[in-house]
């Protein structure tokens, strides 16, 4: 075990895989000499050389399309978007080519796209988004959202191993704020298995990414009121752990779904409606969704704070649910 930040855990996972498997390479803007905008690949080009740590032109389509071609030729590409927001420029390559190639042509496309995402530091409308719901709707793509350093490493290694296109959302606001013990050796964290972030009996929160910690803080506040909150960290949205969610919903009979992506059409709707459909008889209260507002991510701190779900918002939601 070694203490690592969430960011270091990502670097570590990537480095471990690159040392183990020559087919793994990294491509993105400024990932080489500069080590990436967030320094995840700092020192990588020295270690692995310029053809395994490739500084690409400012070309998201070429990066993702290039990874698809290289993957089909047997490589294991890991693309870095400088910010998750820029993946919109490669939407077509992901949705049209990568997601559908296995189904149509039988050709697997094992690529990973690393996506520094999330807000909380006045990044504004184009450096703060959580576009995971958009991708979770596209058949053929997997979607991963680690919430802890340990998962960040293990899920990244799983993503590289996975034979499908994987979108790996790493939350920028956790990069240096989270620190924890992480195994130094190689390990994987399986997709589709939720993590019980906190056990509880009265209300379930289903969430992922940075919101896991917001929920954790809210749960602590509810302790005073004697309300016991269970927090499920989904870890991966595609596939998502329906079984764990339904079991927790049956246990507590009250569910709050929480995410930092915007509300309308967000993946919370998928989860809430699945619970409503499959655990209908067990529910003692309506399922509540808390999510970001239906607007671009605003820049100015008071607006951004109002946009991203805060601990207080979750506390309020949980209290209402508990009292229902």
């Amino acid at each position, binding site marked *: 075990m070694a203490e690592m930040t969430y960011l270091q855990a990502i670097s570590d996972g990537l480095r471990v895989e690159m040392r183990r498997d020559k087919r793994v*390479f990294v491509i993105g803007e400024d990932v080489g000499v500069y080590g990436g905008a967030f320094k995840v690949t700092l020192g990588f080009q020295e270690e692995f050389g310029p*053809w*395994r740590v*490739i500084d*690409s*032109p400012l*070309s998201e*389509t*070429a990066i*993702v*399309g*290039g*990874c*698809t*071609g*290289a*993957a*089909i*030729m*047997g*490589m294991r*590409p890991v693309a870095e978007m400088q910010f998750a927001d820029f993946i919109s420029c490669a939407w*077509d*390559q992901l949705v*049209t*080519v990568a997601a*559908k*190639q*296995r*189904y*149509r*042509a*039988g*050709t*697997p*496309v*094992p690529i990973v796209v690393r996506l520094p995402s999330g807000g909380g530091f006045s990044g504004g409308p184009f450096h703060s988004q959580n576009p995971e719901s958009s991708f979770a709707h596209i*058949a*053929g793509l*997997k979607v991963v959202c680690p919430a802890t350093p340990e998962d960040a490493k293990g899920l990244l290694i799983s993503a590289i*191993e996975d*034979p*499908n296109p994987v979108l790996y959302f790493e939350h920028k606001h956790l990069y240096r704020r989270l620190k924890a013990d992480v195994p130094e050796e190689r390990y994987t964290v399986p997709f589709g298995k939720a993590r019980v972030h906190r056990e509880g009996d009265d209300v379930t929160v289903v969430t992922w990414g940075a919101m896991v910690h917001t929920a954790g803080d809210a749960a602590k506040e509810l302790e005073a009121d004697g309300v016991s909150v269970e927090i499920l960290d989904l870890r991966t949205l595609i596939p998502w752990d329906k079984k764990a969610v339904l079991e927790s919903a049956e246990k507590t009979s009250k569910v709050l779904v929480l995410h930092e992506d915007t509300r309308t059409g967000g993946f919370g709707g998928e989860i809430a409606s699945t619970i409503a459909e499959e655990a209908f008889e067990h529910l003692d209260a309506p399922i509540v969704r808390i999510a970001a507002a239906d607007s671009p991510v605003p820049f100015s701190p008071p607006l951004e704070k109002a946009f991203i779900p805060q601990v207080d918002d979750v506390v309020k939601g949980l209290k209402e649910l508990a009292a229902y």
Partner: protein
Amino acid sequence: MAIAREAEPVSSLHEIREAGLDREDLLGMYRTMLITRGIEERGHILYKQGKIPGSFYTGRGNEASSVGVATAMGGDDVGTPLHRDMGVHVTRGVEPWRIFAQYMGRADGPTRGRDGNVHMADSKLGLLAMVSHLPAMLPVAVGCALAFRIREERRVSVGWFGEGASARGDCHEAMNLAGVRRLPIVFICDNNQWAYSTPTHLEYACETLADRAQAYGFEGVVVDGTDVLAVYREAKRAIEKAREGGGPTMIESLTLRMEGHAVHDDAFYVPKEMFEEWAKRDPIERFRSWLRENAALTDDEEDEVAASVKKLLADAINRAEESPLPDPSSLTEGVFATPEDLDTPHHK
């Protein structure tokens, strides 16, 4: 101001032998061109008979170009041919019956009924299945070349695009990345002068598309796409240059799309004289004459190849029609790949 080089026609059997083809190869190419056209002609009939669902596209007029380029490719080279490039699939060895099965949405087509038309490829033959979105496969072709470069393999990737699709951003990003990294790739522009109903002057404003190669730091060549040997020679040069580390080339292959965009389109917008003029340059007829003049193609040989192609295609249709329609219960199979899928020669 033209910047690209214009390729000369091939003048003799001797010249083409120097470029790597003997008489037998030439007869093989001729046969492949006949099969290519035959598949599409018969597909059209099957379509009219209601045996092919959806729409139907052909590459009539492009047989020389697609067969010429594919013949120049090495066995380990790969490519991303498009909807006018049936000849590439045939040259690389995709069996015609599987193509008919594909057309008819049968379980034994290369996409097992999941996609239609020439949206298919046999990856074991080094081909990647096109998507409709043009030219989204160009960045993918560049990615193949990137893999070869990273692994220092002497393999080349070939990426096709239409002159209409040259307007899309994917074309630019792909060529720019390939140029910057001098990747082993050859870009083939099927310039058939129309993008659906849109003429070239509404698609681009430079003199030839090959001139654009300069914008990406590599060489551009314009070739007569009805001349299979000239296409072959230029493709061969470019592929071997790429293999030797010389970086990309763009080859613009000039033809006319001899039919509508798809079966439903009567191409009323194409001037009649244009069709008449280009009909005189029919690539198959042109190659046949060349073979008679330069390679002593005999009547017997001609008859034999015609008959064998006819039989091949008839058998192929029968076999395809025996292939079952896919089982609806398999609908969601294969949306996601499994680790075993990676157990292919490519993925090792």
